[in-house]
């Protein structure tokens, strides 16, 4: 079981305005029992409300709160200005950076770094190459089964991270579906995503919550909640558990997983707490629990 597992707060994937981001991280700094916090804009540079200076201020506050801080980066840099901002960030950021695209790996050559869940790591050899090239830790894509995660974690004990909470990031596109849903284009989006701090809900035509639109990203409607798999994950050598921020009381969410890791409560209790904390959301064990239940029927309709 290689040491104490780390609890990691992943980057905010939604288009939260600056004030909200600051308030959120200051509260995390003071009250949340996470070991590592990832900052940065992963989805769209157009919405970046934080300057590097502001991120540094947030970092300082988090470090004073005893957290290790790293900077996450764009998952799908395609346009020239996106690449420019990525290059600038890799040049200027004084700490650890998490790569979510091969472009960032290229820019970080020779520097220790993190690998995020948007880089495809499905088998041991790819994981080994990334670690050999300077990755300190690699967060696996959400699509992996528990069996695959186990094999990967065993091949690199302590170096693998797995998401345990938050919507499943399922797809990226060059097109902004958030803007498209309002008849706009990405170039003239007028920040279509800013009014949806937990993403834009997509239902099937028969009314089941199915997916969530977040700019160029598509996520599940359900929240992943993998507390029932945590013991097995840790036993196979997973070194860090990732919690993705949602529009709920994240300090309380973190506290539930911390209590689980400390052995103060079991997964049933975690599930009960999170069900209370996430009203109106379906919690799923995701791919770790077998096939995810993608569009749960309303309880009454289930027969």
């Amino acid at each position, binding site marked *: 079981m290689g040491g104490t597992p780390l609890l990691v707060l992943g980057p905010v994937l939604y288009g939260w305005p600056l004030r909200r981001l600051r308030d959120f991280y200051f509260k995390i700094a003071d009250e949340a029992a996470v070991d590592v916090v990832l900052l940065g804009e992963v989805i769209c540079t157009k919405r970046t409300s934080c300057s590097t200076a502001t991120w540094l201020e947030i970092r300082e506050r988090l470090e004073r709160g005893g957290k290790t801080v790293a900077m996450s980066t764009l998952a799908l840099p*395609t346009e020239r200005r996106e690449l420019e901002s990525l290059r600038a960030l890799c040049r200027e950021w004084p700490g650890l950076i998490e790569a979510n695209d091969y472009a960032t790996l290229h820019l970080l050559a020779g520097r220790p770094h993190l690998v995020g869940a948007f880089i495809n790591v*499905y*088998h*041991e050899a790819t994981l080994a190459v990334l670690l050999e090239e300077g990755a300190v830790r690699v967060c696996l894509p959400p699509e992996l089964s528990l069996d695959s995660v186990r094999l990967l974690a065993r091949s690199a004990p302590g170096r693998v991270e797995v998401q345990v909470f938050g919507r499943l990031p*399922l*797809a990226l596109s060059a097109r902004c579906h958030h803007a498209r849903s309002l008849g706009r284009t990405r170039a003239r989006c007028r920040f279509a995503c800013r009014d949806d701090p937990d993403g834009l809900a997509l239902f*099937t035509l028969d*009314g089941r919550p199915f997916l969530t639109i977040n700019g160029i990203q598509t996520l599940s409607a359900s929240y992943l909640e993998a507390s029932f798999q945590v013991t097995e994950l840790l036993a196979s050598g997973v070194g860090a558990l990732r919690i993705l921020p949602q529009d709920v009381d994240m300090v309380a969410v973190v506290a539930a997983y911390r209590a689980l890791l400390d052995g103060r409560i079991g997964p049933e209790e975690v599930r009960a707490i999170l069900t209370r904390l996430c009203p109106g959301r379906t919690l799923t064990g995701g791919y770790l629990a077998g096939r995810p239940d993608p569009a749960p029927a309303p309880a009454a309709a289930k027969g």
Partner: protein
Amino acid sequence: MERAAVSRLEVVCPAGTPAALEAAVAAGADSVYFGFRDGTNARNFPGLNFSREEAEEAIAHCHRHGVRAMVAVNSYPQAGRAELWQRAVADAHALGADAVILADLGLARWARSRFPHLRLHLSVQASAANPEAIAYWTERAGIRRVVLPRLFSMEDIRTLVPALPVESEVFVFGGLCVMAEGRCMLSSYVTGRSPNLDGVCSPAEWVRYGREGPMLTVRLGDVLIDRIPPGDKAGYPTLCKGCYRVRGRAMRPFEEPASLDLLSRLPELMAVGVRAIKIEGRQRGRAYVERVVRAVRGAAEQAARGRPLDAPDLRTLMEGGRATEGALARGWR
């Protein structure tokens, strides 16, 4: 394959069966790509793809006609089972394939160390969407050609391609992924199977058609992904082309069912230095392949001679009977 020697765009054609491969060769393919009959490639559909014996014959057939044969090993090797993918690369090499198309870093590094002279092409499934990412793959995995993701505008291609250290190949006709290829797990979220896991998107055994009054309903498993009024043409039911309710309205928030058609853009693609153009459609029959390859080859020749394009109307072959220029169309993003 030197860039300076380009006189015409290389036409790269799909083959899901030996019959389709022969049709592609006869219709004017410069290169043909296919996969083995297992989960090692991104068109792992029942009844498709090549046994090792068929692959050997196919490669020999291509070479007799001066056509290059490329083998796609472009799904992601799964933990504990990477040998299956390694064997696919080794066999492609042993059978004399001119290139292997792959997407996974570990597999590419393995192929490079084992077969240093084997030509590696970076699959669209790697989603290498910018010059830095392509530089990574060139330097660290020795790839010689990149198949560009279907998410670039013409402006992007114009700045990207001349700056690349390797050849580039662009999809010009056939199915269109709305999502960045290799970065989409929608299919496995619903069915447990996906392009990255085992080379399948929206597997046919999960598709269920039904009726609601006059409407045709389309489900993937239990999930209702479309309701089609009578008379409308339905495309193959993928999640990204489905109809859903967003903001209280029924809409297709990702994309309409349509096929990519960039034939009118070939002169521009050629002018910026694109080396090869690719046709999607290994799941298609020989008649489709024959017609499309002939049309694309004709268009490539017209582009090379600087003639105005006079392409046959291929709309009857398209998804939903509609064409799109995808990300090359203004305002697509």
